[in-house]
């Protein structure tokens, strides 16, 4: 038996995409509400997600889903009104409902009935709310009675727009110049506060033709479609708005349907196109194919550089020449196309780590509850982009690290109080970019790892002799947790529970070319730091000259470049600095870093120098170079076995003229400077 829903396949696709978003909002929002129930915007967002899901599931005829979301909405509405406090039992019940909704949503995907009954859950909701939930009334929506002579304008804004509210505001201003705005959703006030989806609906009293309205709203950047409708006259006469007419930008699908009804054939086409683009047809692509594509693009980028070089040489030789000019045009076009191609290939491989992080807040909450610990879970840098292949592999190791942190790292509240700590522990999961790496860290403020217990346990397990264990440094001892056969962390902390072999965690991370390190301090906590390479092989870089050599500085690290008089460089505590906007900027001569000592920096003009200001972490540093050459896309080639690891060099690249240029490892250089300062 298969399920039937009242919608076309592409409509269902759109429904699924939006439902996934709303379920995420519900799940994340409930977890946040449990911690802080004072944020009306948050409660409003959670309520709206349930409300929208109710509307759209009812539209496709998914009665179970509609009934459950309706009951959830009632409870959330009472919370919103302030007549029901946010308690753990209520959040628990609502989260169970979200789990059930996920199952019901899957029915839409597979069309296979799950057999899940929602009656108990609905009763549970009523029970949790203690008092019988009042019959939910449809939201008192702004009554959309359109004055005679008014038109309705619906403006869609590109979903990639950073600030759709500002774009909507611009469009509203453009329309307001052509008539009188009777009403708009969102309102002008809401837009000014930055509240908006990617839609604007305006009722406008105007005598201007539709084409003028199209032109005005369409002149705003990132507006992808403008629909002008003359509202159905019968509705105006009755004065009772069709419930589907309720302006609610979240109800995108319904909105489109309504809009399409009164629209001209052309507009209907535009709306259909819009639907299709939102539904986004997906294709699964083998990662090996994306890898191959990336390699080919890399080759193309190198060839483009060489082509430009040849072109320069040719024009230097033969001056202005028709054919050369033609060649130059073609080369420029080729550059643009290969730029775009490269970007698309890179983007197709990148995903925000959010897609892995998403499931953790709920997991940590449940684990903490089970082990009766109070834990504040914080995530940072969820938007950090990570190569698709890495994303797939990183979920399990992170899950194990977080589980270990909850089970073994964090102490029970009593023990924490006894140690003079805040009874609530903090568990931090963060991701950030560092040069050509992504660093993901799991940090707890728990009891730390006891190196003595690890030694004892390792000896007991027969991993090494008692003598060898005593000889080890503390750091080496702690790293024994990664040894195969060290099994669970139970023995380390004397807390019973599941432990996951850390050797598996390490193996999984190393499999994708990463490293994992642990820092721990007794009584203060533990950090597991995972460093993953960006497999992206191409970066934008600034080329600089030092003597005869050309160095490549990744543009991501470059803050600014400047030219300073050599006599403005001062020596403070035997270190060179230059004053920039009143701050002393420490300097490093690239020539020294790569031990090309014995020669003075030779700037093009003896009295002047170039400084490239770079940043790593929170530290700024000025690299002193002879000259700036320009900005270029470079393909990173590993130095591999040829030179081995060279300190301060992140790799090499091949320049347009075939020469090899070293890529400066900014983080290393900054680290070295810090080490020198500490010495």
């Amino acid at each position, binding site marked *: 038996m298969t399920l039937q829903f009242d919608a076309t396949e592409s409509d269902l696709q759109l429904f699924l995409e939006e439902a996934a978003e709303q379920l995420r909002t519900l799940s994340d929002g409930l977890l946040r509400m449990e911690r802080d129930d004072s944020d009306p915007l948050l409660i409003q967002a959670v309520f709206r997600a349930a409300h929208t899901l109710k509307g759209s599931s009812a539209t496709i005829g998914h009665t179970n889903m509609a009934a459950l979301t309706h009951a959830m909405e009632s409870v959330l509405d009472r919370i919103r009104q302030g007549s029901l406090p946010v308690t753990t039992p209520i959040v628990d019940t609502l989260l169970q409902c979200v789990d059930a909704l996920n199952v019901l949503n899957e029915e839409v995907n597979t069309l296979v009935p799950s057999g899940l009954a929602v009656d108990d859950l609905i009763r549970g909701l009523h029970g949790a709310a203690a008092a019988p939930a009042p019959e939910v009334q449809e939201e008192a929506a702004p009554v959309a009675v359109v004055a005679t002579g008014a038109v309705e304008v619906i403006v869609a804004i590109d979903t990639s727009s*950073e*600030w759709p*509210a*500002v774009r909507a*505001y*611009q469009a509203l*201003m453009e329309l307001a110049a052509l008539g009188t705005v009777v009403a708009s959703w969102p309102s002008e006030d809401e*837009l*000014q506060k*930055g509240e908006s989806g990617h839609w604007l609906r305006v009722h406008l009293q105007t005598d201007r033709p539709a084409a003028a309205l199209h032109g005005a709203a369409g*002149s*705003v*950047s990132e507006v992808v479609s403008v629909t002008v409708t003359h509202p159905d006259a019968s509705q105006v006469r009755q004065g009772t708005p069709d419930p589907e007419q309720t302006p609610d930008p979240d109800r995108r699908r319904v909105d489109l349907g309504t809009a399409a009804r009164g629209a001209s054939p052309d507009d209907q086409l535009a709306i259909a196109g819009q639907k299709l683009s939102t539904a986004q047809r997906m294709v699964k692509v083998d990662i090996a194919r994306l890898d191959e594509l990336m390699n080919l693009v890399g080759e193309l980028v190198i060839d483009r550089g060489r082509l430009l070089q040849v072109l320069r040489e040719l024009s230097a030789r033969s001056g202005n020449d028709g054919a050369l000019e033609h060649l130059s045009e073609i080369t*420029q076009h080729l550059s643009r196309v290969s*730029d775009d191609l490269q970007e698309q290939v890179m983007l197709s491989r990148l995903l925000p780590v959010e897609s892995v992080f998403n499931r953790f807040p709920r997991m940590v909450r449940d684990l903490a509850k089970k082990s009766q610990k109070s834990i504040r879970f914080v995530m940072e840098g969820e938007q950090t982009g990570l190569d698709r292949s890495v994303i797939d592999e990183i979920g399990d190791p992170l899950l194990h690290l977080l589980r270990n942190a909850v089970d073994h790292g964090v102490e029970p509240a009593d023990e924490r109080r006894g140690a003079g700590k805040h009874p609530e522990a903090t568990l931090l999961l963060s991701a950030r970019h560092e040069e050509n790496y992504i660093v993901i860290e799991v940090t707890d403020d728990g009891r730390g790892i006891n190196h003595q217990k690890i030694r004892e346990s390792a000896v007991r397990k027969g991993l090494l002799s008692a003598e060898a264990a005593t000889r080890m440094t503390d750091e080496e001892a702690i790293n024994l947790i990664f040894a195969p056969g060290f099994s669970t962390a139970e023995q380390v902390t004397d807390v019973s529970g599941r432990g996951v072999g850390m050797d598996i965690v390490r193996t999984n991370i190393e499999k994708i070319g990463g490293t994992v390190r642990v820092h721990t301090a007794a009584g203060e906590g533990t950090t597991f730091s995972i460093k993953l390479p960006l497999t992206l092989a191409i970066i934008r870089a600034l080329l600089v000259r030092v003597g005869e050599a050309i160095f490549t500085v990744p543009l991501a690290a*470059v*803050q*600014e*470049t*400047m030219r300073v008089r050599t006599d403005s460089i001062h020596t403070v505590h035997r270190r060179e600095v230059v004053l920039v906007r009143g701050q002393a900027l420490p300097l490093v001569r690239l020539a020294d870093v790569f031990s090309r000592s014995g020669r003075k920096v030779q700037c093009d003009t003896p009295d002047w120098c170039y400084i490239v200001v770079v940043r790593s972490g929170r530290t700024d540093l000025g690299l002193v170079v002879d000259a700036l050459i320009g*900005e270029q896309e470079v393909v990173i080639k590993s130095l591999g076995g040829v030179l081995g690891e060279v300190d301060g060099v992140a790799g090499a690249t091949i320049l347009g003229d075939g020469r090899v240029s070293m890529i400066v490892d900014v983080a290393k250089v900054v680290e070295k400077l810090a080490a020198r300062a500490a010495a």
Partner: protein
Amino acid sequence: MAKVLLVDDAAFMRMRCAKLLQEEGHEVIEAANGREAVDVYLAQKPDAVLMDITMPEMDGLEALREIRARDAGAKVAMLTAMGQQSIVIEAIKSGAKDFVVKPFERERVLAAVAKLVG
């Protein structure tokens, strides 16, 4: 092709932005703060202005108002960073035609200029 006034206090940003505009065949003139921008605008009457917001001397919003006060037809787009949304609303009220969020994409900048002069 247009004459574009590029206003930003960071020389590096000017370098990057000027380069991509020039590659497209635009003529670029530069100013490093709002005060300078007003002077250069009045002296050279560019077709379009790309204006950073946070700058020393005179900020982008003030410069925009000053320029629009003296030339009601001035076509200005703001170069803005995340978190300046409310300032951009102010700029639009003061007559800015468009905005581009940094770090910007090449296409966005070129499209904004095309729109300003088109």
